[in-house]
């Protein structure tokens, strides 16, 4: 379903003099539909950069990212027009970022249910019910549902971000260190959620810090050096 061919990202910073930073270089891998691929490697090697190129938060400098979309057929994410990428993000591709960037000034429950409203024609009420269920399962205390996540603990914020990413069962899910700030019990709940998505047919690509987690959960591992 995904073919990454010769992907490189170079950042050209042109303020206070020119600076060139290497994000990732000549990346090649493939993922089949329904597979779980993990990416491992030392800090700063470019793992997050790869995921961000796949989500098109970063514009790839070189290479192709072929993705077999169910709406558009085969597309090259490296070069797909912005409006198509928006449709892919709303209907097919989900993403959990490494650094918890909670959406400011929006309540936790709305953060979680928004993708449902963007994807399906369901009512706010119905979406809210499903978001509440999921937050219960992820053991977020009920009094936090209508509070702003910017005041939450790291682990709570991370579970909000994960809930937002999985609630609509994306066809492809990109996970950047999704378990980094979770306690052991939460890690298990979250991993079981990822596996359930996979059983239901989703494809997942995850960056993990702990090798044991990567090994326990994935079909394939891509190691960067």
């Amino acid at each position, binding site marked *: 379903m995904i073919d990454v061919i010769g992907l490189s990202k170079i950042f050209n910073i042109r303020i206070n003099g020119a600076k060139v930073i290497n994000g990732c270089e000549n990346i090649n891998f493939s993922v089949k539909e329904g597979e779980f691929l993990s990416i491992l490697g030392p800090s700063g090697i470019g793992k997050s950069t790869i995921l*961000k190129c796949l989500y*098109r938060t970063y*514009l790839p400098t070189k290479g192709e990212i072929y993705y077999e979309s169910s709406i558009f057929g085969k597309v090259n994410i490296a070069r797909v027009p*912005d*409006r198509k990428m*928006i*449709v892919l993000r709303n209907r097919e591709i989900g993403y959990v970022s490494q650094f918890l960037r909670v959406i*400011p*000034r929006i309540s936790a429950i709305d953060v979680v249910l928004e993708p449902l409203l963007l994807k399906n024609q369901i009512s706010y009420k119905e979406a809210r019910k499903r978001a509440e269920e999921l937050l219960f399962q992820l053991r977020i205390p009920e009094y936090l549902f209508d509070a702003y996540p910017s005041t939450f603990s790291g682990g709570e914020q991370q579970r909000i971000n994960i809930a937002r990413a999985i609630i609509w069962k994306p066809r492809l899910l990109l996970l950047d260190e999704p378990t980094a700030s979770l306690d052991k019990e939460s890690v298990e709940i979250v991993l079981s959620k990822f596996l359930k998505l996979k059983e239901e047919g989703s494809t997942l690509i995850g960056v993990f810090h702990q090798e044991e987690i990567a090994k326990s959960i994935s079909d394939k591992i891509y190691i960067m050096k």
Partner: protein
Amino acid sequence: MHIQPIVELKNLTKIYGKGCNLCVENTGPEHETNICVNCNSLVACGNVSFELYPGETLGIVGESGSGKSSLLKLLNFDIEPTLGEFYINHEKINTFVGNEKVNLFNLNSFQKRLIKNHIIGIVYQYPYLGLRMKISAGGNIAENLIMAEWRNIEKIRKKISELFEKTELPIDRMDEQPEKFSGGMQQRVQIAKALSNNPIILLLDEITNGLDVSVQARILDLIRNLHWQHNLSIIIVSHDLSVIRVLTQRTIVMKYGRIVEVGLTDQILEDPQHPYTQLLVNSQL
């Protein structure tokens, strides 16, 4: 799956002053000015082209004086362009201008008024531009409804109450003048007014400017809800990048009347390409 844009804007140019045929050439980011050296006219927008897609929220950012408000005013026919083409693709427009695709800038003033009254809603950067401060808040909204041929007083009052409710304004203050309202309330009256004729395109200029954070949050909530419930297509100008991040999917960056960069909002914020965008993003981190 083909997605047709709801708005197409081509080579929009707005020159304040007498203008000459070198104005556009002489201005823009490479010249670091919007004033033409030859004739001293000011190019507020030069060759601005973009598309807006149905249900999309498009952000516009850029330094003070880069032409953002001028752009919105041009789209609302408040000011006349020097040059340019403007198309709206929507069935509602055909009843006013016929089935042929026409450059809306060339319509007569009656047709432009119909489009303003039935298709576009605008919230201005300053409430005094969008509201008449001496007539009641309800009366400000009623003006819009009457322009769109609402005649029945009972129905008008009911509609105003609904709009007050939707924008979280106290219904019992409908008959007060907006000059007695707080800044946040004035913005809400503007939003209620903009929504009164069920527009399909909403133009929002710095709607959270100068409001305290909790009021800002409620206004942002309101805009998000409108987006969800009515599937409006929205253009939002803001100098606050966190507002842009929360509300928009795509963003346009302007400088000296030109578009210097367009992209997915997170790409603009995290992987800006143009040096000016890099500076803008960096200075707000």
